[in-house]
């Protein structure tokens, strides 16, 4: 499912908006035994606006689960998990991370199930950013 979400972001967001001024951080980590760093699907998100990170200890997914006060029921694993995964979090251009990030403008899980909201919110964010740009 995660890889399907990543491919959707590549195809439906990044390829369709090649000039969109957005930074994407793809944080990969293991959730099942067969997951591994060498198994990272390097062809899923190939856009140069994407920064890929391997999170061996799931520090970011666990941090978000704690911050958002989530206890994640994984339908695919059929168990509770300690990390937010197969998820997106969208931030505006002003957002800063101090003791934590400002609350996301939008977030959702799974990526495929929340893709319509992700697309709509990102479009609205990009429109706002264009309006604020000099010359507009």
């Amino acid at each position: 499912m995660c890889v399907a979400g990543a491919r959707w972001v590549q195809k439906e967001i990044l390829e369709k908006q090649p000039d969109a001024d957005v930074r994407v951080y793809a944080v990969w980590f293991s959730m099942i035994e067969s997951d591994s760093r060498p198994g990272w699907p390097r062809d899923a998100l190939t856009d140069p606006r994407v920064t890929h990170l391997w999170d061996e200890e799931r520090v970011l997914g666990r941090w978000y689960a704690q911050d958002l006060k989530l206890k994640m029921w994984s339908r695919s694993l059929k168990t509770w998990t300690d990390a937010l995964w197969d998820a997106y979090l969208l931030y505006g251009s002003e957002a800063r991370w101090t003791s934590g990030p400002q609350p996301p403008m939008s977030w959702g899980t799974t990526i495929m199930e929340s893709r319509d909201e992700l697309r709509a919110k990102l479009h609205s964010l990009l429109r706002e950013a264009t309006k604020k740009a000099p010359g507009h």
Partner: protein
Amino acid sequence: MNQMRWFVVLLVLLGAGPGLVAEPGSSSRVIGDLKDVPQFAELFNRGAGHPRLVLLLSPT
């Protein structure tokens, strides 16, 4: 010219090395290691001024 070539080779090696973070605009096919949350916070703040999308993914 030779110096420039070596510089480019060095950059490619550094970008592909373990423990380093691939920057936006470089090849997205490079993966870096995330060690802790402050490391991510620094990267996140470097992207300030642009909308940012964080994806939490497993390779399956």
